[in-house]
C-alpha cells in the first residue's frame, strides 16, 4: 500500500508544479504587454554589452544614460538596463533570444566579425534609414561602416576599433639584455628564451589556440592569406607554403621551444572557452607570462593585484622576416538594434548618444580602443605613449578579410572551431599535413556554404 501511494503523491506535486510554471509565465507576459501598450515611451531598454562587467565602463554608461534622458526628454522615465554577455556565448544567446522571443536585447554590441553573420541570420534590424539621416555618418571610417553593410542595407554602426599587439614589461626586457623589441620570428623566440632564462618559472609567450583574431597575424606575417574570395567563392589557403610556415612556427612555440605551457592548448586569452577572466591574461598580469598577445582592452580583465604595471609596453606582432610588423586584424565592436525590439526609434536614439563623437572617443580612450571617426583617429594622442605605441603602429597595417566573411563566425566561433581545433590537434601531436589539409577543406566548405555537408 505504501508503495502505491508514492506515484500518486508525485503526480500531485508534479501537477502543482506544472500549474505553477504555467501560471508564472502567463502572468509575466501579460504585465509586459500591458506596460508597452499604456505608454508610447518604453519603460525599459535592454542593452547587451559583451565581455565581463568593468567598473569604468559602467560609470561611462551611466553618464551616457543621463545624457540620453536630457537630450531626449520623451525618454526621461525610460530605464536602460545593461546585461553583460560573455564573448564566447553571445552568438548562441542572440539565437536563443530571437528563437524564444524572450529576454531579448533592444540594443546590442556585436564584434565586427559577427555583424555580417548575424545580419544574414536575421538577428539585426535594418537601420539604413536611421543611419542615412544621422549627422555622425559622414565622419565614420568608411571601411568600418562598409563592414556593417549588406547589399546596400546597413545593419549596425561601428562603435570602436582595436588591434592586437604583444604586451611586455620594459624592465624585464632590460634585465634580460633585450635592447629593442623583436621584429622577426627568430628574434621573438630568442627574446622569449632570454626572458625565461632570466625569470625561471615564467612562460615566454602565449601560444593559445582559441584566438584566430591574433593568430591571423602570423599567417599574414608570413605573406599568406587564410582564405581569399573571388566572384563570391571562397578558396581556403591554409595549405599554401606561407600558411604552413606560420602554422608550423606557431605550433613550435609550444612543441619545440616550450615557450608556452600545455594549459594554453584549447584556451582563449581568458582561459577556458566560456570564461570571462583567467588564462594568459591573468598570467601576464601576475608576472607569470613574459609576453602576451592581446589588445589594449585586456587591461580591463587583468587581475587587481597585477604586478609591475608601470612598465607595461607593447610592440607590434613581428612578421616572419621583418623588419615591418605583421598585418594585424582590425577588430572592434558595432552597435545594432535587435530584430524583435519594439522600440527601434528609442533604440536608435540611445545609439546616437552612445556613439556620438565625444562619447565614442571617451569610451575608446578609457579602454585603449580607437574611436570610429576619422578625425578623432588621426588627431588622437594614440602614438605618443609607450603603452599604446605598439598598438598604434600595428593599426597602421591592418586587415579584416576573411574574418568578416558572412560565414566566418560559423567557421571560427559558432558551430565550428576550425583553426582553433587544428592548432589544438597539432599541439597535441597530430600529423601536420593531413590535419592542416582537413582543416583547409572544412574551412573552404563552411565559408562557402555555412555548414559542412
Amino acid at each position: 500500500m505504501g508503495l502505491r501511494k508514492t506515484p500518486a503523491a508525485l503526480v500531485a506535486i508534479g501537477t502543482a508544479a506544472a500549474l505553477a510554471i504555467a501560471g508564472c509565465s502567463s502572468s509575466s507576459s501579460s504585465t509586459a504587454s500591458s506596460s508597452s501598450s499604456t505608454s508610447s515611451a518604453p519603460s525599459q531598454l535592454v542593452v547587451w554589452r559583451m565581455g565581463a562587467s568593468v567598473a569604468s565602463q559602467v560609470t561611462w554608461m551611466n553618464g551616457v544614460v543621463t545624457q540620453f534622458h536630457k537630450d531626449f526628454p520623451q525618454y526621461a522615465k525610460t530605464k536602460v538596463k545593461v546585461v553583460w554577455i560573455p564573448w564566447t556565448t553571445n552568438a548562441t544567446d542572440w539565437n536563443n533570444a530571437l528563437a524564444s522571443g524572450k529576454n531579448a536585447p533592444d540594443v546590442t554590441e556585436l564584434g565586427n566579425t559577427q555583424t555580417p553573420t548575424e545580419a544574414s541570420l536575421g538577428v539585426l534590424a535594418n537601420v539604413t534609414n536611421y543611419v542615412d539621416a544621422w549627422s555622425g555618418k559622414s565622419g565614420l571610417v568608411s571601411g568600418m561602416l562598409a563592414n556593417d553593410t549588406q547589399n546596400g542595407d546597413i545593419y549596425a554602426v561601428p562603435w570602436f576599433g582595436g588591434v592586437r599587439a604583444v604586451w611586455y614589461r620594459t624592465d624585464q626586457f632590460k634585465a634580460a639584455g633585450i635592447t629593442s623589441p623583436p621584429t622577426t620570428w627568430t628574434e621573438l623566440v630568442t627574446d622569449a628564451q632570454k626572458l625565461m632564462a632570466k625569470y625561471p618559472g615564467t612562460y615566454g609567450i602565449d601560444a593559445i589556440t582559441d584566438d584566430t583574431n591574433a593568430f591571423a597575424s602570423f599567417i599574414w606575417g608570413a605573406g599568406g592569406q587564410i582564405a581569399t574570395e573571388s566572384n563570391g567563392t571562397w578558396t581556403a589557403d591554409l595549405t599554401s607554403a606561407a600558411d604552413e610556415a606560420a602554422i608550423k612556427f606557431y605550433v613550435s612555440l609550444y612543441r619545440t621551444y616550450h615557450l608556452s605551457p600545455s594549459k594554453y592548448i584549447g584556451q582563449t586569452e581568458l582561459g577556458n572557452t566560456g570564461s570571462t577572466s583567467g588564462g594568459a591574461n591573468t598570467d601576464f598580469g601576475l608576472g607569470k607570462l613574459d609576453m602576451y598577445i592581446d589588445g589594449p582592452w585586456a587591461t580591463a580583465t587583468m587581475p587587481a593585484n597585477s604586478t609591475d604595471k608601470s612598465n607595461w609596453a607593447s610592440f607590434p606582432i613581428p612578421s616572419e622576416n621583418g623588419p615591418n610588423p605583421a598585418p594585424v586584424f582590425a577588430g572592434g565592436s558595432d552597435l545594432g538594434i535587435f530584430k524583435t525590439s519594439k522600440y527601434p526609434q528609442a533604440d536608435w536614439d540611445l545609439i546616437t548618444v552612445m556613439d556620438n563623437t565625444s562619447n565614442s572617443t571617451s569610451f575608446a580612450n578609457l579602454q585603449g580602443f580607437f574611436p570610429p571617426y576619422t578625425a578623432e583617429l588621426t588627431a588622437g594622442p594614440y602614438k605618443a605613449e609607450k603603452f599604446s605605441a605598439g598598438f598604434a603602429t600595428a593599426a597602421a597595417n591592418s586587415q579584416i578579410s576573411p574574418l568578416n566573411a558572412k560565414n566566418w563566425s560559423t567557421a571560427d566561433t559558432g558551430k565550428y572551431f576550425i583553426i582553433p581545433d587544428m592548432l589544438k590537434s597539432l599541439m597535441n601531436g597530430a600529423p601536420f599535413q593531413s590535419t592542416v589539409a582537413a582543416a583547409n577543406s572544412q574551412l573552404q566548405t563552411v565559408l562557402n556554404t555555412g555548414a559542412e555537408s
Partner: protein
Amino acid sequence: MAVRAGRWVRRHRVAPYLLLLPSLALVAVLILWPTVQIGTFSFQNYGLDQLVGASPTQWVGFANYSQILHDPEFWLSLKLSVLSAAAMVPLTLVVGTLVGLLLARLGRKMAAFVSSVAMLAWATPAVSASVIFVWLATPDGGVVDWFLTKVPHWLGGGAHWAGFSWTNAALPAYTLATALVVWTSFPFIAVSVLAGLRTIPDELFDSARVDGAGPWQVFWRVTYPVMRPIFQVLFLLSVIWDFGVFTQVYIIIGELGQRDEYNLGIYEYSTAFQTPPAYGLASALAFVLTLILLIITVGYVRASVREGALL
C-alpha cells in the same frame, strides 16, 4: 447520482484507469507532445529562419539522419560517450558495492555516519561538484597537480605533473569527468547494495563460513547470486545515467570550445543552438540518442520485471 456513478465505475472496473489519468495527462503534455514535435522537426530543415517564420519549413525526408550517420564528429562523440560510460559504470558499481559491504559490517552509529557523509556527495548539485573538481584540477595551483608532483616517481608521479592541463585533450578531461561521476554516484549504489544485503538471511552467511568460505567466496557464492537482480537494475540505471551525462562534461571541457571533446549530449546541444542553429538536425540526433537509450531501457525494464520486488 453519486451512488449510481460509483456503481458504474465499479461495474466497469474503470477506477484504475481513472486513477492513471492525471499522470497520463502529465506524461502526454510533458513528454509525448515534445517527442512528437521533435520527431516532426527531425524530418524538416528546421532552423532559425523557419522558427521565426522568415522562410518556409521544408520536409527533407531522412536527410538529417543520413547526414548524422555520415558525420565523423557524430561517431567521435558517440565513441566518447560509450568509452566514458564503459569506464564510469564499472567503477561506480565496484566502489559502491565495496562501500555497501563496508556499511553492512560497521556498527550502527558508524554506518549512519559513513552513509550520511556519502549521501552528501550524492546530494551535491552537479554544477557545484563540477566546478569544484575543475578547481581541484586546475593547472594554476590545483591540489591534484600539486599532489601528483609529490607522488614518488615509481608510482607515476613527478615534476612533469606541475601545470598539467586536465582539459586540453579528451583523455585527461574524461578521466576527470569519470572521477567526478563515480564520486557523485557511488553512494546510491552503496545504499542500494546495503538495502539488498539486509534482505539476505544471516543463516546463509553463517553456513557458508562454517563450510570454510572466505570473504571473496562468500561474496561470489552467496551475496552476488542472491542480489543479482538488484545488481542488474543498478547496472542498467548506471548505464542510462552515465551514457547521458551532460552537465559535468560540459563544465569540465570548458563549455563548447573543444569539439574534439564533445560527447553525444554536448554534440547534440551544439548542433541545436550554436550558430547557425539546426534544430531539425539536432532533433534527429536527439532521436538517435533516445533510440540508443531505449534499447538500454528495454533491458532495464526486463531486469526489473524479473526482479519484481523493486516494482
